[in-house]
């Protein structure tokens, strides 16, 4: 312990002096400062800079070379005759991406919750090699999104594994990644495969937190399995499900990397999602427009904040109702 004590004595002196100078409250600031600094530099500052970008025009990258144009980028995004018909909008790609993202979120999140719940329910049962199965369903979560995209590209492409399999069974191969509907379905399927294990894990933890006694009490009462699920399991799982919905929703709105690798947004713009639109508008297109991209990302952030607040509000209401 002697070396530790020696170090402590050395640290002690300046810290004591500092506390004498700043008081106890000052010490709290001192210890929080490094974290606040990192948060400020890497989260808060970019947010502010991004907002400033959204108020500027031109193709130049450096803020100093850009002209202030106020809310022009925003009004350009909203320049539309009919919001339900992207082609009638000035920024048709933006509204296509909004529409695609909307349907992706609705379908992917509801399917995600359903499959994660069913998977967790199964993994919570007494089954052979349970740990193995739990690991199997979780493994895709550990993969890099690019790897996920590539794996599925190998499977789904024209000369991929799936068509090879179909061919072996005497069926005709199909161009999965060039059919609009199939590709859209594939993006949902692949993102389900890649992330479901994570949400199943959260739900599984919730399932295991429900006391066994409750199920035994229900058993003594002769409660049918369906009624046990709807009246006991589901209500007690609600807090975990809320977490899953919030996380899945945020992640789903932000969908990008694995889909970009898999489809590149195509065929056409059928799998162009918001984040890809922002990326391409700001960085990848020939006529890049960082201001427009910034404005779109601010709008997307706003939608996410609103969605999260709504859900937290619902959760808080449920919590008060079900206070223990």
């Amino acid at each position, binding site marked *: 312990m002697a070396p530790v004590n020696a170090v402590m004595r050395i640290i002690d002196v300046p810290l004591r002096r500092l506390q004498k100078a700043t008081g106890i409250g000052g010490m709290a600031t001192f210890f929080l400062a490094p974290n606040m600094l990192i948060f400020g530099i890497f989260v808060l500052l970019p947010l502010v800079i991004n907002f400033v970008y959204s108020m500027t025009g031109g193709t130049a990258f450096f803020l100093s070379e850009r002209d202030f144009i106020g809310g022009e980028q925003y009004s350009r995004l909203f320049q539309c005759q009919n919001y339900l018909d992207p082609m009638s909008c000035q920024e048709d790609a933006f509204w296509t991406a909004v529409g695609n993202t909307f349907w992706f979120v609705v379908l992917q999140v509801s399917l995600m919750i359903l499959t994660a719940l069913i998977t967790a329910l199964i993994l919570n049962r007494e089954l052979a090699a349970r740990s193995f199965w739990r690991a199997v369903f979780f493994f895709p979560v550990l993969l890099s999104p690019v790897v996920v995209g590539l794996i599925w590209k190998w499977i789904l492409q024209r000369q991929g594994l799936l068509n090879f399999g179909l061919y072996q069974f005497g069926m005709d191969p199909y161009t999965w990644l060039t059919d609009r509907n199939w590709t859209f379905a594939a993006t949902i399927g692949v993102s389900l495969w890649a992330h479901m294990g994570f949400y199943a894990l959260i739900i599984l933890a919730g399932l295991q937190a429900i006391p066994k*006694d*409750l199920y035994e*009490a229900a*058993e*003594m*009462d002769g*409660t049918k399995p369906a009624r046990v699920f709807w009246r006991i399991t589901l*209500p007690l799982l609600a807090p975990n499900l809320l977490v899953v919905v919030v996380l899945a929703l945020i992640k789903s709105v932000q969908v990008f990397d694995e889909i970009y690798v898999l489809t590149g947004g195509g065929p056409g713009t059928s799998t162009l999602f918001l984040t890809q639109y922002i990326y391409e508008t700001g960085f990848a297109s020939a006529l890049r427009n960082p201001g427009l991209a910034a404005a779109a990302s601010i709008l997307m952030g706003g939608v996410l904040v609103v969605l999260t607040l709504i859900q937290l509000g619902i959760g808080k209401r449920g919590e008060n109702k*079900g206070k*223990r």
Partner: protein
Amino acid sequence: MGEIKLTDVKKSFGALAVLKDIDLHIKDGEFVVFVGPSGCGKSTLLRTIAGLEKVSGGEIAIDGKRVNEVTAADRGLAMVFQSYALYPHMSVRQNLAFGLENSNMPKAEITERINEAARMLEIEAYMDRRPGQLSGGQRQRVAIGRAIVRRPTAFLLDEPLSNLDAELRVSTRAELAALHARLGSTMIYVTHDQVEAMTLAHRIVVMRAGKIEQVGTPLELYNEPANRFVAGFIGAPHMNFLGADVLAVSAGAATLSFSRGYRADLQIGKAKLHVGEKVTVGVRPQHLVVSDDPQHPAVKIYLVEALGSETVVHGDLGGEKVLAVLPGQQKLNAGDTVHFDLSKPVLHVFDDNGLRLFTHPGSGA
């Protein structure tokens, strides 16, 4: 009716035998308490009766019908769990109604049963609260209420008082006894607290390591324990055990020699003793009597607990720990030496295997 008969009941988890050849006949309306140390199998036995665990062998019969293959719900029993197992997201009323709704009982009857149970248990005031808004004692009542509304043939209670504070435990114990008298149903009650067992039970089942050690009324177990384990388990504080050698045997009497050569003459009745045999003598702390005669065994006191109505003395008799509960307030201090006359108290004498050989009736104080 609520007669429960266990014949040769066995239960193992894998290679681990938790219950070994349990035979027990519980009569209708009886209050039976399973008692024993942690891990003795008492809760498992209750759960096999409930149908929450399947037996590995033997037969369970309720009112003469074999129920081994009958589901927990169809055995007509109700269980009160140690944790109460109330549904946290439902009100008290919903908790009570939940089980009844399963059987498609008409609403009016459910309401009637709930109201009756609520009146009986005095929980009417908080029928619309959730379990989380209730105190431990109130939750406990709701848990019992949930069992009562089902009108079961027998109640199974798994350490129902263990989560209550000491004071509440005493009052709830009395209420449980009153409830049993009122309902007249069979009750099986599991506890590790021998005071609960003594105060509540018609008959106590003492268990150890998956086996029944003795079944009897509380006083039978107290006065005639079958073996050293039961003798030590029933009664508080625990019985003192002293090693002794049989020095001499004559018709109906024997002389025992304790450590340091102290002797005592005991009436052995018809029991058979051999000279030279090693025995264990059990004496309850309350039965020890202080003697003025310095010839009697000397106990060196190392701790005195004055409780006002009685004085608890911890001492050492030739290397063996001795606890005595003496009446009233005694002028004794740590470091003092007192003498106990070992021929006066009731003495239980156990053989090498811990089985009781005989009980010396003693001559009283």
